[in-house]
């Protein structure tokens, strides 16, 4: 075969020893500024050799900083890559047992080849994509956990072909195995596999059920054998991992554009000056040759040409390389703040937040879309039995003395279950009255728990005596059965015909007569049991609406009360189930049983017939009550989401979960709210239907919206990608879309429709999505919206979207580390996201913008003075300042104060940032630093440079010292101009600083003092006598800084530079204050605000009455449970699963999307 199989080694690193330097340099020079400096670097020495001294600056002023920047970046890239190498090596060197030459040998993962047969043991990671051959379990089943792939932690079942399974663990047979597998090429679809196996001249079809994917973990299975089909990069896991992209912030991009603009501007200035030079040479220079002869052979045109290049070098300080050094330092500093933040440290898992990428900080202040995983990120994936309503009484709330509901915290007293030997110690319940009711023998309460203990499809597992572990298809069921267990109704064991329950200490065995299993249409499940006394009972649990229809009329009063409780629970975001029972009489049941048998064996329309039979018996039920299960959210999730929503950040949940679960979580974590006008659900099976539903939703939200997407008019520089404008919508909407529909909606022709509709909604929930779809959704928004995206997740299934999004956040502290490893930031809890964005992100963005504005200002001002001086020195490229000042200006005199500004500045402190999430808005709109702000900066610099040149010019013109001696000389003028400049830019810095710490003060005054100290030193006798040609400015400082008019000039220029800014800002504050100004003014007047004032408590609205329910079930094990007669393994160390041998479409894995809606139409509120 021509196909080259990948071996099982993976490589996520970018470089190796040889390729590091060229590749890294190539990447770095793609950064426009680096390339620009390289050009300058070449130009400078070149010019001084070829063109004879057109430069008045030394070559090292550019080369040293450039090398510094390049090596700093390279060092960081190298260390990142070393980490990747290390983790690759760790993975590649894991050991696995491989069948080689008739014996099992331990081999490294990377040496595993396609076609090898490997043996896996329990709790091992699956090495590569395998065809399951045989396993230790009956029916060749294996249990796997796919958390790394799709985030679901419940176990899944895979089953080998009987023909291969028969080989068992016989090494001889396995080594002799010579089947041939033909299959599809490597792809990224996790839920699909097609191929066939030819073995012993028979051909068997292979589907996803027989494939173990790399990244899964083997559970509860002693051993299994598998044939490697795809290895390394070909595995579905790796195919699902997006490419590692080099992330850049939008400010980086803007800076690239700006550098281009600045370069254009530089060329423009130089051209003006060169033309000026040409004219000057023609008019004045030609006659001034008496005292200053021309250079050899230079005519007016040629000297203009030379002047052009001289000015390119002199004016290159508009973009000094120190800009880039400083930007990197600022980002690094702000990253450290994230690492250091105690408020993002999680005590329980001892995990501090970590900024793994140090170049994206300011982007954190501009997030517009958050894409979040659900399981493990928003929820803890723990279900707890939280409340119940039994016979019209609600249990579960803790009331204080006045009868008010109290908030349940860690410290609230919980029910003591120590009397129950079999109780689950992790179970917590806070309402003592329920236990009392049980103990007092209240019939309804006991019936309630008996129902919970009987009506389910959970598998028990007793590892040690008295240590029960339940294996449930859905965690909800597990929670309910556990609750029954703790309240004294312990589900102990099951056989196909019986269920053993320990009721209040006494063991009772019920005969299991029928299981009327759950499915999407029925939305309920029932069991029919016979008690030891011979009483026949039907126990039923299901969705409220469904059960209510089937209740006995005598229950109507109880129904009303229960409904009230149900609404209350639903309002709290709990998943509710209604429980009912019915006593059956023997004759009727026998008759029914016969018909049931007939239906279940009928060949035509078996399903329908069965449903009808079920329907018949599930009638005139007696209502028992309702249970409420809480899908435990991570701490602080609703509050965080509310805060982020206030900051106008849109949150999309992308989850592999079922629609109901996802939707329910959407409500319980405040994403979907009752106030929303409508929550649209898109669940269609064809592209047309999807389009129709999307269109309808959009029309409803925005009736006037056009059919063509409103593309943003983009400038010439913008790339070809089409940017869709935001559309205005009244009111809040939500959108829920399932995996099937999403697959259609992500197709080329529907993408934009999806985007437009989804972006109109406040909250979007996508369920049943694959890792790659997650990435596609993120990519879609990233491509077509001018917005910054953030993806947050905890598992390997989130890796692709974490990589694609502008910023990826990994939840650390859990088991899997893949998400963290590919993330840019990581922390332990979702709630830290609000601090990361609203505090760190906002500050970083603010600081970076302030830094850029100020930095451009100070350098433009610095440079423009040269431009103006050009008109008075015959365009000869004479610098205004001392050469030393030019070298030290960016490196020493102004470096630290601006760093102080951009490392310490805060407009308002973190508490106010939380209180006014609206402060986040300007960042999303890119308001602080944009092309417009840049132009403003340019104009401001222009003004300042005019002041800074012409005021000293006029002040010094024809004037003399107070002893009649010279002061209008070039050197004194240079000193005066540079002092004015430095004082003025420092005053401007002072105006820009909001937050004056001691460090800021020290940097500012320190830099000024250093300037004067350095000036006096360099202009001293000693320095001159040692290096006469390097320090020609001897005595200038002493002779001019003692002149009153010099100081008066400095004072005048700095006041003139600052005054207009002050007036402008004051006017803005008075006439059009922005949100920052308002909050600042507000905080200023409330500085002594006590704690209560800044922590007004937003209590979660518990009063919203939303009749909702969710049954997070897939179809249960019901078939298996009743279709006994097979396989009676004694209940011992492993969950016994009773399977039909003909389990071709194993119901366990039939987790097809469920299409019913849980939001009732009666939205009367």
């Amino acid at each position, binding site marked *: 075969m021509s196909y080259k199989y990948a071996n099982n080694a993976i490589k996520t690193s970018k470089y190796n020893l040889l390729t590091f330097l060229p590749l890294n340099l190539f990447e770095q020079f793609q950064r426009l500024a680096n390339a620009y400096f390289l050009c300058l670097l070449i130009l400078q020495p070149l010019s001084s050799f070829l063109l004879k001294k057109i430069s008045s600056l030394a070559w090292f002023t550019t080369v040293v900083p450039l090398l510094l920047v390049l090596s700093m970046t390279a060092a960081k890239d190298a260390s990142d890559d070393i980490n990747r190498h290390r983790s690759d090596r760790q993975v590649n060197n894991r050991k696995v047992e491989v069948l080689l030459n008739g014996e099992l040998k331990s081999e490294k993962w990377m040496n595993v080849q396609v076609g090898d047969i490997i043996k896996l043991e329990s709790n091992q990671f699956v090495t590569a994509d395998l065809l399951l051959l045989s396993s230790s379990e009956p029916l060749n089943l294996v249990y796997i956990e796919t958390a790394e792939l799709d985030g679901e932690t419940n176990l899944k079942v895979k089953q080998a072909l009987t023909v291969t399974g028969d080989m068992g663990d016989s090494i001889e047979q396995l080594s002799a195995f010579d089947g041939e597998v033909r299959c599809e090429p490597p792809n990224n679809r996790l839920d699909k596999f097609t191929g066939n196996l030819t073995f012993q001249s028979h051909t068997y079809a292979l589907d996803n059920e027989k494939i173990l994917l790399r990244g899964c973990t083997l559970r509860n299975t002693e051993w299994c054998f598998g044939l490697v089909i795809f290895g390394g990069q070909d595995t579905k896991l790796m195919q699902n991992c997006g490419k590692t992209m080099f992330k850049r912030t939008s400010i980086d991009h803007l800076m690239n554009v700006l550098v281009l603009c600045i370069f254009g501007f530089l060329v423009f200035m130089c051209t003006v000056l060169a033309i000026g030079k040409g004219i000057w040479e023609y008019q*004045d220079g030609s006659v*001034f040759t008496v*005292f*200053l002869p021309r*250079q050899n052979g230079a005519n007016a045109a040629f000297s203009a040409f030379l002047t052009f290049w001289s000015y390119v070098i002199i004016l290159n300080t508009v973009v000094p390389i120190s800009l880039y050094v400083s930007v990197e330092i600022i980002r690094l500093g702000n990253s450290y703040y994230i690492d*250091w933040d*105690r*408020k993002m440290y999680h*005590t*329980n898992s*001892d995990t501090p937040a970590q900024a793994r990428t140090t170049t994206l900080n300011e982007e954190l202040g501009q997030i517009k879309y958050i894409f979040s995983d659900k399981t493990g990120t928003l929820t803890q994936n723990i279900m707890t039995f939280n409340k119940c309503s039994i016979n019209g009484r609600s249990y579960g709330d803790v009331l204080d003395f006045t009868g008010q509901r109290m908030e349940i915290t860690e410290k609230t007293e919980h029910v003591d279950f120590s009397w129950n030997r079999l109780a689950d110690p992790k179970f917590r319940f806070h309402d003592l009255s329920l236990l009392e009711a049980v103990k007092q023998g209240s019939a309804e309460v006991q019936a309630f728990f008996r129902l919970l203990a009987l009506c389910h499809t959970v598998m028990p597992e007793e590892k040690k005596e008295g240590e029960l572990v339940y294996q449930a298809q859905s965690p909800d069921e597990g929670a309910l059965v556990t609750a029954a267990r703790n309240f004294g109704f312990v589900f102990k064991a099951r056989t196909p015909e019986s269920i053993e329950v320990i009721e209040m200490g006494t063991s009772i065995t019920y005969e299991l007569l029928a299981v009327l299993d759950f499915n999407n249409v029925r939305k309920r499940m029932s069991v029919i049991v016979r008690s030891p006394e011979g009483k026949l009972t039907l126990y039923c649990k299901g969705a409220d609406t469904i059960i209510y229809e089937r209740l006995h009329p005598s229950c109507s009063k109880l129904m009303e009360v229960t409904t009230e409780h149900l609404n209350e629970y639903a309002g709290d975001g709990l998943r509710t189930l209604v429980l009912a029972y019915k006593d059956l009489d023997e004759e009727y049941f026998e008759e029914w049983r016969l018909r049931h048998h007939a239906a279940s064996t009928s060949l035509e329309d078996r399903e329908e017939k069965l449903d009808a039979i079920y329907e018949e018996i599930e009638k005139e039920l007696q209502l028992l009550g309702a249970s409420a299960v809480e899908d435990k959210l991570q701490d602080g999730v609703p*509050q965080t989401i509310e*805060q982020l929503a206030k900051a106008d950040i849109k949150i999309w949940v992308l989850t592999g979960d079922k629609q109901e679960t996802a939707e329910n979580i959407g409500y319980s974590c405040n994403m979907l709210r009752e106030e929303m006008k409508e929550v649209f659900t898109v669940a269609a099976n064809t592209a047309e239907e999807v389009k129709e539903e999307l269109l309808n939703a959009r029309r409803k939200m925005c009736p006037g919206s056009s059919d063509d997407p409103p593309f943003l008019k983009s400038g010439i520089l913008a790339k070809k990608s089409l940017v869709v404008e935001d559309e205005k919508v009244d009111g809040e909407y939500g959108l829920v879309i399932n995996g099937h529909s999403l697959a259609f909606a992500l197709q080329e022709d529907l993408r934009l429709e999806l985007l437009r509709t989804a972006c109109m909604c406040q909250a979007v929930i996508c369920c049943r999505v694959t890792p790659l779809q997650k990435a596609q959704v993120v990519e879609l928004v990233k491509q077509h919206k001018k917005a910054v995206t953030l993806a947050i997740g905890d598992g390997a299934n989130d890796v692709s979207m974490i990589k694609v999004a502008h910023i990826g956040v990994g939840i650390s502290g859990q088991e899997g580390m893949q998400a963290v490893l590919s993330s840019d930031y990581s922390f332990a809890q979702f*709630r830290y996201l609000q601090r990361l964005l609203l505090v760190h992100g906002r500050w970083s963005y603010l600081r970076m913008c302030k830094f850029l504005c100020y930095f451009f200002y100070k350098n433009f001002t610095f440079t423009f003075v040269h431009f103006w001086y050009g008109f*008075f*020195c*015959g365009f*000869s490229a*004479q610098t205004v300042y001392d050469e030393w000042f030019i070298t030290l200006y960016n490196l020493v005199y102004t470096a630290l104060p601006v760093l102080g500004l951009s490392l310490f500045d*805060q407009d308002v402190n973190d*508490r106010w940032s939380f209180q*006014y999430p609206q402060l986040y808005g300007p960042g999303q709109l890119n308001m602080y630093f944009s092309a417009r702000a840049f132009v403003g900066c340019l104009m401001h610099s222009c003004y300042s440079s005019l002041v800074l040149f012409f*005021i000293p010019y006029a002040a*010094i013109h*024809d*004037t*003399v010292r107070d*002893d*009649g*001696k*010279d002061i*209008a*000389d*070039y050197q004194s*003028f240079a000193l005066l101009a540079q002092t004015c400049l430095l004082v003025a830019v420092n005053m401007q810095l002072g105006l820009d600083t909001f*937050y*004056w*710490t001691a460090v800021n003060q020290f940097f500012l005054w320190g830099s000024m003092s250093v300037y004067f100290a350095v000036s006096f030193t360099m202009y001293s006798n000693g320095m*001159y*006598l040692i290096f*006469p*040609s390097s320090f*020609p400015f*001897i005595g200038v400082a002493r*002779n001019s800084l003692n002149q009153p008019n010099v100081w*008066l000039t400095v004072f*005048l220029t700095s*006041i003139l530079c600052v*005054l207009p800014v002050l*007036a402008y800002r*004051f006017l803005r*504050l*008075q006439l*059009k*204050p922005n949100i920052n100004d*308002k*909050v600042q*003014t507000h905080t*200023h007047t409330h500085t002594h605000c006590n704690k209560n004032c800044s922590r007004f*408590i937003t209590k979660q609205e518990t009063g919203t009455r939303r009749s909702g329910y969710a049954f997070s079930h897939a179809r249960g094990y019901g078939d298996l449970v009743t279709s006994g007669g097979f396989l009676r393994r004694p209940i011992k160390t492993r969950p016994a699963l009773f399977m039909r041998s003909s389990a071709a479409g194993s119901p366990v894995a039939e987790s097809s999307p469920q299409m019913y809606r849980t939001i009732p139409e009666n939205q009367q509120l």
Partner: protein
Amino acid sequence: MMASSYNAKEEDGHHSGSVGPGGAGAVKSRKPDNTAFKQQRLPAWQPILTAGTVLPAFFVIGLIFIPIGIGLFVTSNNIKEFEIDYTGMDPDSPCNMCINSTTPCRCSIPFTLEQPFENNVFMYYGLSNFYQNHRRYVKSRDDSQLNGDKSSLLYPSKECEPYRTRNGLPVAPCGAIANSLFNDTLELIYYYPNKSSMSIPLVKTGIAWWTDTHVKFRNPGGNNNLTAAFKGTTKPENWQNPVYELDPTNPENNGFVNEDFIVWMRTAALPTFRKLYRIIQKKKDNLTPTLPPGNYTLEITYNYPVISFDGHKRMILSTISWMGGKNPFLGIAYITVGSVCFFLGVVLLIIHHKFGNRNNNADIPN
């Protein structure tokens, strides 16, 4: 806010929680240090712009600037200055005849001082349209040579080209600046009311910076025997005398330390400039003014060619004050800025009254 309470919860939890029950043997917690710096809680002063600070600032600046401006303006106006352009471009000018002369040419210009000049009076020559600040011109010197370095004396820096060597000999002092040394001679003659005349004594020394005369400029091998010290060098092309014969009257004022030379070597910042030429010291008796009003004649030895580049030559007499020479700019600027400030203050005050309150009390949108 809930968020804060969460944080608070953790802060509380720290004391008991993070230090494990293991005590001394417990693994070191990765909890970040609680320092003001790391938690970004450094104490800070947070000034913001309010009407209470900005408006008074404007008024105060106005109130400070206007008096300073008036003071400066008055001082500047009290300085007496007299200026004569002796280029001779005007055909009627006595110096017109010297314009095209190639040999030294003398001309005299009579003038009248209306007012007495008191205290020390400073005599400047002024040049205009002279690009002493041209980059190539500024560079064209060798500071080592001027500092008396012997090797640089014989091997001047390349910067001096094309005035580095002449006839195979190194030029001392080399370079374009030195070569273009101003070489007109100016003298003042006072005519008493009784028509008798007196040449006014002009002091040649003390016109350059102390640092220049004592540190920056030094003769090779000290001030003795300059002729020998400059042996092996040649004078710049445009000079009449070698560097060691610049001032025949004062042997101390020769060579590189000649003050006229030093003043010239301190290149001007702008193409129009003046340089100190001589000092007329005040009378010892302090009763009669240094320069009484009356008739004077300026005697010029016209050597320096400026006509070719459209330059002008001036002679300026000036007294000085604490703020230097006559320059009304600073005074006017201060008065203007002060008034503008005051005016702006009033305008802003009105705006603040009209609009400020409305916006300040406006709620922050939620």
